[in-house]
């Protein structure tokens, strides 16, 4: 998939801090013992199947989609935790694999489950200081840990130094995890479902913290989420993934209010609201990345194809037979749908 020049450079003409170029990550599918013995090959799951995206400095991008769409694998590849078989990832113009250790200091990950991410036998101080020790950062460790905890909203920080994770609430634990990332003074944070394990009333505070960190420290944030409401609350741009590809990307206001891809439309339709159950719901389960359909990968579930509208518009054969890249609809708003080039809405 070629990278569009329009997204290459921001309005200010600055180079993106992160460039993901056509990455592919696949995993060998699981195979039963019997099938293995008779020499059957495991099918390949194409978890990420050609993803390109760019992040400008100080931007919050939400990567959204159902489970199995490849959003977490994309985030892990960005962190250097998965090596793509194809494609490249550039950080400040340089491939991340060249100087992975230095890169991992600048880019920190915040995981979904704060309870699992913290060692239950370590004090809060030890947990936050761990990154400093791994990266052999010099200087006053105590002051750095205190600063990171305070930055993450744990004030006064000294009060929590000797606590253990079980003595804290879920929201506080997530703040400690964020402090563990901040202690290395990163430029970018990759947050995988940062609030989905938290109580509803606590979520807003953690999201507000992420926005404040962007404001105060100029952090760039890639947030992986299944929750489009979260994207509406904090993101500048939204990328929607389906079966290993980005099917729509653009400014959050545009994508969430005037979606160009039928899949984005469908995801928005199931966000619970009054009367929402009367609207169409896609049938079937999230699709299988070992069997990616030919043509547009969404066509077997696409309501535009199913309703016959695609046939009326004369694009049905394309939908069924022609794979397509993202097409620009408005400046900065791209969708991978055969409706877009003919100026139709989903």
């Amino acid at each position: 998939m070629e990278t569009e020049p329009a997204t290459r450079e921001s309005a200010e003409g600055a180079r993106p801090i992160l460039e993901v170029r056509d990455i592919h990550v696949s995993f060998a599918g699981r195979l039963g013992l019997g099938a293995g013995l008779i020499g059957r090959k495991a099918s390949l799951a194409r978890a990420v199947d050609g993803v390109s995206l760019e992040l400008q400095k100080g931007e919050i991008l939400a990567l959204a989609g159902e489970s199995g769409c490849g959003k977490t694998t994309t985030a892990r590849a960005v962190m250097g935790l998965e090596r793509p078989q194809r494609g490249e990832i550039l950080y400040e113009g340089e491939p991340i694999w060249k100087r992975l250790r230095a890169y991992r200091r600048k880019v920190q990950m915040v995981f979904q489950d704060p309870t699992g991410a913290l060692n239950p036998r370590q004090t809060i101080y030890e947990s936050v200081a761990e990154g400093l020790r791994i990266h052999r950062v010099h200087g006053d460790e105590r002051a750095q840990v205190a600063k990171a905890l305070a930055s993450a909203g744990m004030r006064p920080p000294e009060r929590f130094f000797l606590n253990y994770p079980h003595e804290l609430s879920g929201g506080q634990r997530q703040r400690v995890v964020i402090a563990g990332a901040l202690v290395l003074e990163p430029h970018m944070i990759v947050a995988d479902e940062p609030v989905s394990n938290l109580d509803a009333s606590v979520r807003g505070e953690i999201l507000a913290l992420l926005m404040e960190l962007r404001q105060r420290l100029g952090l760039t944030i890639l947030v992986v989420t299944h929750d489009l409401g979260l994207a509406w609350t904090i993101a500048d741009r939204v990328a929607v993934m389906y079966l290993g590809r980005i099917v729509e990307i653009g400014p959050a206001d545009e994508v969430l209010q005037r979606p160009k891809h039928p899949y984005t439309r469908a995801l928005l339709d199931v966000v619970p609201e009054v009367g929402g159950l009367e609207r169409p719901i896609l049938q079937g389960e999230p699709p299988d990345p070992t069997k990616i359909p030919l043509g547009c990968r969404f066509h077997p579930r696409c309501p535009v194809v199913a309703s016959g509208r695609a046939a009326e518009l004369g694009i049905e054969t394309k939908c069924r037979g022609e794979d397509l890249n993202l097409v620009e609809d408005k400046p900065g708003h791209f969708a991978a749908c055969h409706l877009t080039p003919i100026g139709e809405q989903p």
Partner: protein
Amino acid sequence: MSLLSVRGLHVTYTTQAGAVPAVRGIDIELDRGQVLGLAGESGCGKSTIAGAILRLLPAGTQVSGEVMLEGDDVLGMRARRLRAIRWTEASIVFQGAMHALNPVQRIGEQIAEPIILHGQAGEREAVVRAGALLEQVGLPPRRLKDYPHELSGGQRQRAMIAMALACNPSLIIADEPTTALDVMVQAQVLRLLKELQRDLGLAMIFITHDLSVLVETCDRLAIMYAGRIIEEGPAEVVFHQPAHPYTRALAAAFPEIGDQRFRRNPSGLPGDPPYPADLPSGCTFHPRCPDVFGPCPDVDPRLYDVSPGRRAACLLVEGALAAAGVTAAAPETARSDATAEEEA
């Protein structure tokens, strides 16, 4: 007579660390065919209520109050009678269908089992009924022969719903029935539950932390905090014009896409839900409340009438101060949305 009537329900767990009051005085009235949503955060006692209604709580738990199901006193009932009403009068759909199904038994046998045990049909007929139930929840009857691991998460939840319907109960308690599911599958299961409820005239108690899910599935909503109901009323009114500051914060956690008030503006509450064994004084919500004023740390509010059929446990509700016997005046600035709305 209502189908289910819960009065003054208290549930206290006995733990090594002492007594933990999980539910502290709850009243629920539910008519046939009505759907009640019970919402709140972890530890608020919502799942405990489900367990108390069908007496599924661990031995040694202290339960007091009254639970009447079709006029029968559930809490005082003998074990034999209790077994008879479980499944036939009320059944539960649990959260996490993965763990609620037996992994080494075929789906069909699991659905047929309560039918046979309750003597509603012989073995052969029960299997036929199980097949029909699967069809009713949108699964092909050939799935009867499958084991739980052969089904996807959404299909397992459908099988659980089929099981809950097996003995034609008049009440179904659904405890976080869609929590672990993907958004699209969640919408499918919600629609199924709503359709079944409508077609079969079921009464339902829908328990979840996700307030937005309840608005579209329930007639009435009850919001829980620290073991009590703190607001109740018609679902849409409670969600869109909350009278209690806690409900307002909870509703804001599920922003409506397109609503500019939420755009780039996450809002939440400071602090965390209290631990049931260590509750704050007065109104248990006061340490986190944005509208806290004079008497809140001392006065434990009960539910006050906001409007007909609508109550909230907050001293800011009009007339609440007088009802609580407090002489302080409510601050002008901190008025609940509902009061302002009604005056406007």
